[in-house]
């Protein structure tokens, strides 16, 4: 066959592909995880993996089910959620106030932004020893840690979002007779929303991470406590349950935020939205 003759069929194949492909690919991408899970289960069942290092996944599921049934899981989960919620609220609130001041006012920018930029260099999790001295080892430590973790991604995205607003749109709004407050409401705020959503998603991730660390310090409740306690009694399966819960929390919160984002930012999708 000549070059010329093979070419058309090659391009035909290329255009025909996309329709059939995504499904096949999705299944293919599932292969490795499934193989790994099966491998895990069998190797710890036959004793290749020692039970105390990595119990079979069925044991982990069973432990999770037991904890869910007797209400232990719900109690600890609620405590963790309360901490994350309080920390998120404080961190996001503070970031919204300071980010708006720095983003909207030149004076605010000069006064607020430099210290925030400097403080960013400190990894907030490294502040744990100092925070223990300042606020003790109680609830306020966990909430403070979450709030700190949440603050930075929220602040920086809001600040950058406001800065990235197209100045020409602000000008157009001004020629339409909009005053400063109306310009913020109709131009700056909606224009910043995409960055705000991104900040919120990163902040939620940071919240879970901070919570994981915070709950390993002198805690009497929460998913982290559940894991630390299980470790002391060498209940590896419960430790793994805790890990899965953390992962699920991260996944769920991200899914919810994405859904809200899609609904709120309909204008970005143009045609599909109407």
């Amino acid at each position, binding site marked *: 066959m000549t070059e010329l003759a093979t070419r058309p069929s090659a391009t035909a194949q290329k255009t025909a592909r996309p329709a059939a492909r995504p499904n096949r690919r999705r299944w293919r991408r599932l292969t490795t995880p499934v193989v790994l899970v099966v491998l895990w289960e069998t190797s710890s069942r036959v004793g290749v993996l020692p039970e105390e290092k990595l119990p079979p996944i069925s044991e982990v599921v069973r432990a999770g089910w037991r904890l869910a049934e007797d209400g232990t899981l719900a109690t600890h989960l609620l405590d963790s959620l309360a901490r994350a919620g309080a920390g998120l609220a404080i961190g996001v609130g503070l970031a919204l106030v300071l980010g708006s001041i720095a983003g909207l006012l030149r004076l605010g920018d000069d006064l607020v932004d430099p210290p925030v930029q400097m403080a960013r260099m400190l990894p907030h999790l490294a502040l744990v020893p100092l925070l223990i001295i300042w606020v003790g080892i109680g609830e306020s430590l966990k909430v403070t840690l979450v709030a700190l973790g949440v603050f930075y991604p929220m602040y920086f995205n809001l600040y950058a979002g406001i800065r990235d607003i197209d100045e020409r749109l602000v000008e157009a709004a001004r020629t339409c007779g909009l005053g400063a407050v109306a310009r913020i409401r109709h131009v700056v705020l909606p224009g910043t929303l995409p960055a705000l959503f991104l900040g919120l998603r990163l902040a939620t991730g940071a919240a879970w991470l901070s919570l994981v660390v915070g709950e390993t310090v002198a805690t009497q409740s929460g998913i982290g406590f559940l894991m630390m306690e299980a470790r002391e009694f060498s209940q590896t399966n419960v430790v793994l349950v805790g890990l899965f819960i953390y992962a699920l929390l991260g996944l769920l919160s991200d899914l919810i935020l994405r859904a809200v984002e899609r609904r709120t930012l309909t*204008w970005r999708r143009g045609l599909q939205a109407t």
Partner: protein
Amino acid sequence: MATRPTGDVVTATGVRRVFGDTVVLDGIDLTIGSGEVVALLGGSGSGKTTLLRILAGLDQDATGDWQVRGNLAVVFQEHRLLPWKRVADNVALGVPGPDVQRRTAAALTEVGLAGRERAWPAELSGGQSQRVAVARALVREPDLLLLDEPFGALDALTRLRMQALFGRLRAEHGFAALLVTHDVEEALLLADRTLVLAGGRVVDDTPVPLTHPRAPDDPGFGALRRHLLDRLGVPAAA
């Protein structure tokens, strides 16, 4: 049609604008009468946009005296629609009053976009977006329309349509306009008077005494065209 203020809608004397060491506008005197369409020509970087922004109230650092009377509306080279507002909300932006919805619909009808109220700007073509920008200006019932190369970014065919639309709207509403353009033909088709900006000053002020509707092959058009090209420093083609 609303009653127009009699007298001039723009009076400016000695308008100066300096960027660093560069004098961009060096004492501009300008009057635009009620209902008068003035085209502002000039080479790239001659300060046309700068002057228009000063009149639009978007430049705080200019010196001199200028006054704009009556309602003002601006159409920029890019449509500058807010992407997060539907077409109708873009047109009605900042418009007070109880019958905004009806007036918005009327303005959209006038630019040939009746029924597109609920569309997002992202769904419109370049020409359609620019029509919405014109509707956004119209709904304000302007006494003075400032246009900065409003059709410059459009393809040739769409530009011709938009020029015709501008002519119709002007005849209908009788607004005055300052039309910044690169296009000598566009200036001669639409304007009552043309100004040429060079070296920070108005170096030419020529009335266009042709009757509407105009066409480039009208008698007198060619002579005016040559005159303007000459003042713009374009050598005459053989």
